[in-house]
């Protein structure tokens, strides 16, 4: 039963500065090792702690500095190999970590599953069994409750519709198989199947993209303000903060002194990062060096590069442009209240299509334009955050990804010239995975579909 490896966030969400992602199962160590740079976890002793970095193997992007506790079976909570990844990055990083281990082969734990495993492996004694059952019930009901609440009506309808599309397609394939002689029913072709599969695939892809947007809405667009000393970074920060009545939260980490400040720009939450750096040294590059700043900047969703209208473009400015050229960037030409000394055409050239906004922060001019630029960058200028439904539940996102990969397999099977009845296996799988999101996995509904859609009989 417990042959797979499970993972979950094991600190209460939103509480405490340290987040823990816990893995349990045969592959726990292997999976952690795949995303960890530091010691080779497969070789270290049991019950040891290791410092290192979590890196997304797909992009080589550094996600987080972490401490990993490694405990091998049987002296663990679940009596299986257990790995706990401790990080400090707040909710966003913990979620990111969880997603990573899920992508690398772990399965999201069911509610209460660690405890259940502990019990099934004989770790918890008899007197606790009743409690375990109550816990599973309570956690399951709560998780279902939360999941259903997170799945609003519109989204649920959309997923139902996608499922309906899939099952109609599958029923069509099935009817061709079970009633091969009925000419009343058109033969399903691979072309049609590919088209239908692709349609649903793209819809899910869109949903996942929106999920990313939703995440931005919940967690804020991490925004870095950069620029040479005295161009007005602090003024920009203060303006944004004052203008928008910022919610200032201090989340001191242990590896970096970051102060994050949240400001809300027309419904788009910005999380201003590394603002401490701005305040203290006025120069992020000088402070942490080119390579590290490049890294730090890569983590930002948005860069605000501030230039001084009253000075000519310096090498340092050009260097900054180079650093951020492939990122989401808005260029601010500040101090327009002073004489124009900046070569506009060179700035435009360096900006390479990124928006340029002129401001005078002292005279409070250009701030509307900046806010507009920000919202249009992230939401195509049409932010209807109140209306849009986003998939936010990690479990739902995971299931959508699985459904997508099932459809992907169906599509490649079509390319390979596999027979329809085999391709159908993956399409049906996608249908039933989507069913898990809306809580409907009854296999019999295919049979129902078959008979309501087609006229069959002797």
């Amino acid at each position: 039963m417990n042959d797979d490896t499970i993972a979950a966030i094991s600190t209460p969400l939103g509480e405490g500065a340290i987040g823990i992602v816990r893995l349990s199962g045969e592959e726990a160590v292997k999976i952690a090792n795949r995303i960890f740079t530091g010691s080779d976890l497969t070789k270290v002793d049991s019950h040891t702690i290791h410092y290192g970095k979590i890196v997304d193997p797909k992009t080589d992007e550094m996600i987080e500095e972490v401490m990993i506790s490694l405990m091998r079976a049987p002296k663990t909570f679940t009596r299986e190999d257990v790995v706990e990844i401790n990080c400090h990055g707040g909710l966003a990083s913990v979620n990111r970590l969880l997603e990573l281990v899920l992508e690398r082969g772990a399965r999201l734990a069911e509610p209460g599953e660690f405890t259940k495993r502990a019990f099934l492996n004989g770790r918890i004694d008899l007197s606790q069994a009743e409690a375990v059952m109550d816990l599973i019930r309570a956690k399951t009901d709560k998780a279902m409750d939360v999941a259903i609440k997170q799945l609003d009506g519109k989204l649920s309808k959309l997923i139902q519709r996608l499922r309906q599309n899939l099952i109609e397609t599958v029923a069509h394939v099935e009817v061709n198989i079970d009633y091969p002689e009925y000419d009343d029913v058109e033969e399903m072709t691979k072309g049609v199947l590919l088209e239908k599969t692709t349609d649903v695939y793209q819809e899910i892809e869109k949903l996942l993209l929106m999920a990313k947007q939703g995440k931005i809405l919940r967690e804020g667009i991490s925004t870095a303000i950069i620029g040479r000393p005295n161009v007005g970074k602090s003024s920009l920060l203060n303006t944004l903060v004052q203008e928008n009545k910022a919610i200032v939260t201090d989340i001191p980490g242990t590896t970096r002194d970051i102060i994050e400040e949240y400001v809300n720009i027309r419904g788009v939450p910005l999380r201003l990062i590394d603002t401490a750096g701005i305040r203290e040294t006025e120069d992020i590059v000088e402070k942490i060096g080119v390579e590290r700043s490049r890294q730090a900047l890569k983590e930002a969703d948005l860069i605000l590069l501030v230039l001084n209208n009253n000075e000519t473009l310096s090498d340092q400015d050009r260097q900054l442009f180079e650093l951020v050229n492939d990122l989401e960037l808005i260029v601010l030409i500040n101090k327009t209240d002073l004489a124009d000394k900046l070569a506009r055409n060179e700035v435009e050239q360096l900006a390479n299509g990124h928006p340029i906004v002129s401001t005078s922060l002292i005279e409070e001019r250009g701030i509307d334009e900046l806010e507009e630029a920000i919202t249009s960058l992230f939401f195509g200028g049409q932010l209807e955050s109140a209306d849009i439904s986003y998939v936010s539940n990690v479990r739902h996102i995971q299931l959508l990804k699985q459904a997508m990969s099932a459809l992907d397999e169906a599509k490649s099977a079509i390319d390979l010239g596999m027979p329809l009845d085999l391709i159908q296996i993956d399409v049906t799988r996608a249908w039933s995975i989507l069913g898990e999101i809306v809580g409907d996995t009854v296999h019999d509904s295919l049979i129902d579909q078959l008979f309501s859609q087609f006229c069959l009989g002797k």
Partner: protein
Amino acid sequence: MVYDAGHYDVIVIGSGHAGVEAANASAKRGANTLMLTLNLDMIAYMPCNPSIGGPAKGVVVREVDALGGLMGQVIDKTYIQMRMLNTRKGPAVRALRAQADKPLYIAEMKHQLEKLDHLTIRQAMVEKLIVEDGVCKGVITETGAAYYAKSVVITTGTFMRGTVNIGEISYQSGPNNQRPSVKLSENLEELGFKLVRFKTGTPPRIHSKSIDYSKTEIQPGDDQPGHFSYETKDKIIDQIPCWLTHTNEVTHKIIDDNLSLSSMYSGQIKGAGPRYCPSIEDKVVRFHDKPRHQIFLEPEGRETEEVYVQGLSTSLPESIQEKMVRSIAGLEKAEIMRSGYAIEYDTVVPTQLWPTLEVKNIKGLYTAGQINGTSGYEEAAGQGLIAGINAAASALNIEELVLDRSQGYIGVLIDDLVTKGTSEPYRLLTSRAEYRLLLRHDNADIRLTEIGYRLGLIDEERYQKFQTKLTLIKEEQERLQKQTIKPSDELNVALEKVNESHLKEPVKALDLMRRPEIDYSFITQFAPADKEIPNDVIEQIEIQAKYSGYIEKSLQQVDRMKKMEEKNIPENIDYDAISGLKEEAKLRLKEVRPLSVGQASRISGVNPADISILLVYIEQGKIATVS
């Protein structure tokens, strides 16, 4: 006056498609078996369509055959037309279907049974079961004969309180005006059985000479007919075609205008009918926009002129049936020989059975076939076989057999019945099987012969032949796995011809065969075999090479399922004592009494959290017994 008429190991009540397989399996296992039938001339009678097989069903016939059953061999000897269906689709869904010679099928089946050792056949109407202290000990017939046995199999089909309906006419009857079985049904109710009414129907039969075939399309059999039994040799016989015509708007208007006269629409029939086999009334009502429906004209045998009108199942009054039939192209002058009718009958709610088909509350009593709420000859045969095997097992205290969902369609069928029950006559469909790629018609022997041999249903000679086949498959696969094919001009020209890309590097022969357009005969041009390889061996090698990815995926799923199936639920478990189980789950679990956690997880109304709790509870029990 009741008298002692004899003692047996196993008694089978009924001789339809379930009864004959039950009797055969039981006798072959060495149990002294008595088969009681209402009418000796109606053994394995086909009251509805004259055909056997088709998707899923055809695979069942092969499974029955691999376990020593009779259906495959008898139809191979008596068919008038054979077709392989779904040839352009994948190997998992290919299926044989035969048009049967009905009278000949009956005669051949009767003769096969008469030749069996350990089997006594007797014409009699059973009215009562002898049940003492929850154990079935025999039966009593209407003539007062008391037959005693260690186990009893009931296979009464649609006979229990059967009621035939034609328009407003309704009378008690078994199919085709045979005597219904009324008292047995009452007896089962007294014994505490939960019974429900189901309904099915059949179309009119018409005289061949009154058909204008020129207005219909011919539907011939295959040039190279296949066969169901692994024992049958390839042969070419003279086949008889079927014919295709269609209903039209006139037909539909006749039906529409007279709908209130149909037994089914007047409210006369209360039983649930099958959706997959609707009457023509249903089709016209539910799919009103369809301008026409297919009608297949199927001969009922070589030595008869009766033709079955497939697609026209009805319970309209006789006079309307005639008008309706004559509105169809080619049937303008059709002479009806038998009218279509709907039949209602009692069935046993199948969740009252264990997966062995033994009745949960009465030891030694088994039910199989249409009485369990299924429909179709093949579904009946599959259940009959399992019930017969297990009735003999119980009587002789030898090994029982339950097939799981990965071993055969028979396993899917019985698991569905005893775990989920059914609200309409149950028909097997390939889509009911989650591992259908493993449940192919070509590998039924590989899946089941070993079991058949172990249970004494397959003889030594056949088993040795099967072993030889397995060895050949393995050796030839190994050869192709070892042998390398090198790129050459000749090879690349051949590849081009079948629209495949050129070979650049040497490959193993088996790997080259994985390409979609490459078959075994292509491979042997470049890597010839050192001996003659039979077609059925080639078929296995090709399928296993080409679909290995999917087969592997299915096998992994089966592994996961098996782990859950192996978690047994203690028989005396008290679901009420498990805190945390939802009320609905408790109710359903108490009703079905699943044997394993796997089976429990398939019960509707039992959700994953309930299963987790059940697991914890069971483990707790284990720990408790240990300490």
